[in-house]
């Protein structure tokens, strides 16, 4: 350990300029980002994108430089013929990156949380957890590419090559963009459906780190890194891996116990937003109280003459534990038919976060953050929230006769380098499709904003069959929909 600290001190002395640059970037992000984020839309060229990308690149460069200081890829490195203990050498590099990447990231997260008025202590676990995950993304590429390259030029080439390999093999947008989204963005590896696909890259990175400092087979190591990147890219697009990923994350999930079928005893209703669709009630059983299921699929419709029409869109929706299948059949298909709907269903764990009144003051959501109903051309909601380690915070507007939950509309700006903070639900107004009538809600005194956490804990396929389904399309017209009161609200 003494030797590790000694090497660490040497690296810190050597790379102080890069360390300072990373620290300044983290500090600038932590102290300046929230203010400017309010005025931008998260595009790459605004304050959110460039500093975040700079921090990522600066961290990678710093990590690679630390490795290159005692490079195992050099033909005849200085350290190799000196009494370096290799475990201490690796430990020194990891200690270096912990001190100058993880710690600044954690501090930046703390500052952002405090500036947003969120509770640092209440979110300490999530903050540290997500910092560790983010640090892995900030550190491991630097380590694994650093040990197979000899200098920053080599390293830059390797990064570019790796990116191209990923772009060629995956359609899920890995790369720096992965880091630039908040926890409910596509880049959150704990929520990403294909988290398992990243495993080859991580394994290859760790293997070459050990192998290079132990045996220095640089060409072989380069091959392993390339293979890991390629394999990850190929697996990322695989549905099987996505499904496996969810199971890995939540091994307790058992789809066999979930019962789902059409409830033929209840009437079919026209869909209020699209008159060519219908809402068919469903019976759902075997789910825990805090779980809901959702899913979609494309169904076949078969008429009395056994002609099959493919293309009916089926979506499983839930409101207040009442399930319905929203069926949008192919136009001009007969009314009496058999519906055969193969679906992919997601099981979602729901937990309450906060219930807030609807008014124009700052709405304190406790440890979760705070929300504000802002007025510009129209009223809209903006929340600065601490997201959980996994899952996503959704918000709903409720008042008697109305309930509508949303995962977020146009983002007001993300906090890419804050592990837990995210601004969302921006621009919601009654003028937007699916938007909320916030102006109406502000005039009422019984409206509530409900924040809750949704976390996908499993997915499974299921086929629903409805024989003799009667979708009287000529009667599909907008009709007043029976309202369902929000939780805890008096029924009208």
């Amino acid at each position: 350990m003494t030797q590790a600290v000694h090497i660490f001190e040497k690296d810190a002395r050597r790379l102080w300029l890069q360390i300072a640059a990373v620290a300044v970037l983290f500090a600038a992000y932590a102290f300046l980002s929230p203010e400017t984020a309010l005025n931008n839309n998260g595009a790459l060229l605004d304050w959110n994108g460039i500093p975040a990308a700079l921090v990522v690149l600066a961290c990678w460069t710093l990590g690679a430089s630390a490795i290159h200081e005692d490079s195992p890829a050099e033909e005849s490195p200085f350290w190799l013929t000196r009494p370096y203990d290799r475990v201490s050498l690796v430990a020194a590099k990891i200690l270096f990156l912990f001190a100058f990447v993880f710690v600044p990231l954690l501090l930046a997260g703390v500052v952002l949380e405090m500036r947003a008025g969120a509770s640092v202590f209440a979110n300490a676990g999530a903050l540290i957890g997500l910092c560790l995950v983010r640090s892995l993304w900030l550190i491991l590429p630097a380590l694994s590419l650093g040990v197979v390259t000899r200098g920053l030029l080599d390293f830059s080439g390797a990064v570019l090559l790796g990116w191209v390999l990923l772009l060629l093999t995956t359609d899920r947008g890995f790369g720096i963009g992965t880091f630039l989204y908040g926890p409910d963005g596509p880049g959150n590896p704990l929520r990403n459906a294909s988290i398992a696909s990243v495993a080859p890259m991580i394994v290859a990175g760790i293997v070459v780190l050990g192998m290079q400092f132990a045996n220095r087979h640089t060409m072989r190591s380069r091959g392993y890194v390339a293979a890991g990147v390629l394999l990850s890219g190929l697996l990322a697009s695989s549905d099987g891996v996505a499904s496996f990923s969810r199971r890995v994350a939540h091994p307790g999930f058992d789809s066999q116990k979930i019962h789902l079928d059409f409830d033929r005893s209840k009437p079919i209703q026209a869909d209020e937003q699209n008159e060519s669709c219908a809402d068919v009630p469903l019976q759902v059983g075997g789910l825990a109280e805090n779980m809901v299921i959702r899913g979609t699929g494309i169904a076949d419709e078969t008429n009395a003459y056994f002609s099959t029409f493919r293309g009916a869109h089926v979506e499983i929706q839930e409101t207040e534990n009442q399930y319905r299948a929203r069926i949008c059949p192919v136009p001009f298909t007969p009314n009496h038919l058999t519906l055969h709907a193969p679906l992919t269903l997601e099981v979602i764990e729901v937990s309450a976060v906060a219930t807030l009144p609807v008014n124009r003051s700052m709405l304190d959501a406790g440890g979760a953050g705070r929300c504000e109903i802002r007025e510009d051309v129209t009223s809209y909601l903006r929340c600065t929230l601490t997201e959980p380690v996994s899952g996503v915070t959704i918000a709903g507007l409720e008042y008697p006769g109305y309930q509508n939950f949303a995962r977020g509309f146009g983002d007001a700006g993300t906090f890419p380098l804050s592990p837990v903070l995210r601004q969302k639900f921006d621009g919601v107004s009654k003028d937007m499709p699916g938007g909320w009538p916030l102006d109406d809600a502000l005039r009422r005194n019984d409206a509530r904003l409900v924040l809750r956490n949704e976390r996908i804990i499993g997915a499974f396929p299921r086929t629903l069959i409805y024989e003799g389904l009667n979708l009287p399309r000529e009667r599909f017209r907008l009709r007043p929909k029976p309202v369902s009161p929000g939780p805890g609200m008096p029924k009208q």
Partner: protein
Amino acid sequence: MSYAIRCLELSKKFRRVQALERLNLDVPEGAVYALIGANGAGKTTAIRTMMNIYEPDAGLVEIAGRDSRQLCGRDFRRIGYVSENQKMPEWMTVDYLMRYLKPFYPAWDDAMASGLLRKFALPRDRKLSQLSRGMRMKTALASSLAYHPPLVILDEPFTGLDPLVRDEFIEGLIESAEGTTILISSHDMAEIESFASHAGYLENGRMQFSEEMASLSARFREVEVTLGAPSEVPRNWPADWLRPETTPAVVRFVDTHFDEETIGERVRNMFPRMTDLSARAMPLREIFVTLAREQRRAA
């Protein structure tokens, strides 16, 4: 006899190039062994294999009885290694390099380190990147001698050094490494000759000879034969007589197995009209040049 370094049937190949082929080399403890050979002969490959920088394809290297593949950090507390090709931490000052290395070596001798820096007139506060090549090599040597290693390996340390610096380097090495086993590779034989106790000649990855300097010097002689009448080079020219040069009155050659007692008879058998015979001791450089030319001619 115990050996500080032993190479047994050592082979190393880089793609299609056979850098070392069944190399056998013994460096006795306490010896100053000069590994000589032309550029590309395999000297650096041999040394890097000894230092576990390269892994041998076949054969074995033993450093103080330990398989070179097993050499780890701790073992390098007892080995000093200086190479013209080694990447040094150029950003460090001379002083910081010494301070940085000190904790790695339990036997680090501050007085020795300071003495060497003084002797080599090295500026303590200057970065290695700002030093001349000679100064960098002297810094590397000072940092490799300050912990009294029983074995010092120097790979082409004189390349590009001016004669003054070379002298200082050698002087410092000899003074500070008394009793130490030294393996030094070079194609600058003139400097090595003055202090080497053993020499090995490497050609195309193969050891052509490896022996004590005294024996080597005794074995090689430039022989000059004065003839009473012009004579042609006989067809049965001995294989151990190299580089024959003839003029109508004189024949010169290098005897690689010189024996004072038998040389007269052997020459007389070859040149019955011989009137005079003289044999001159050869410096190592001439021996090397003779052997190298012979190899090229044979190739």
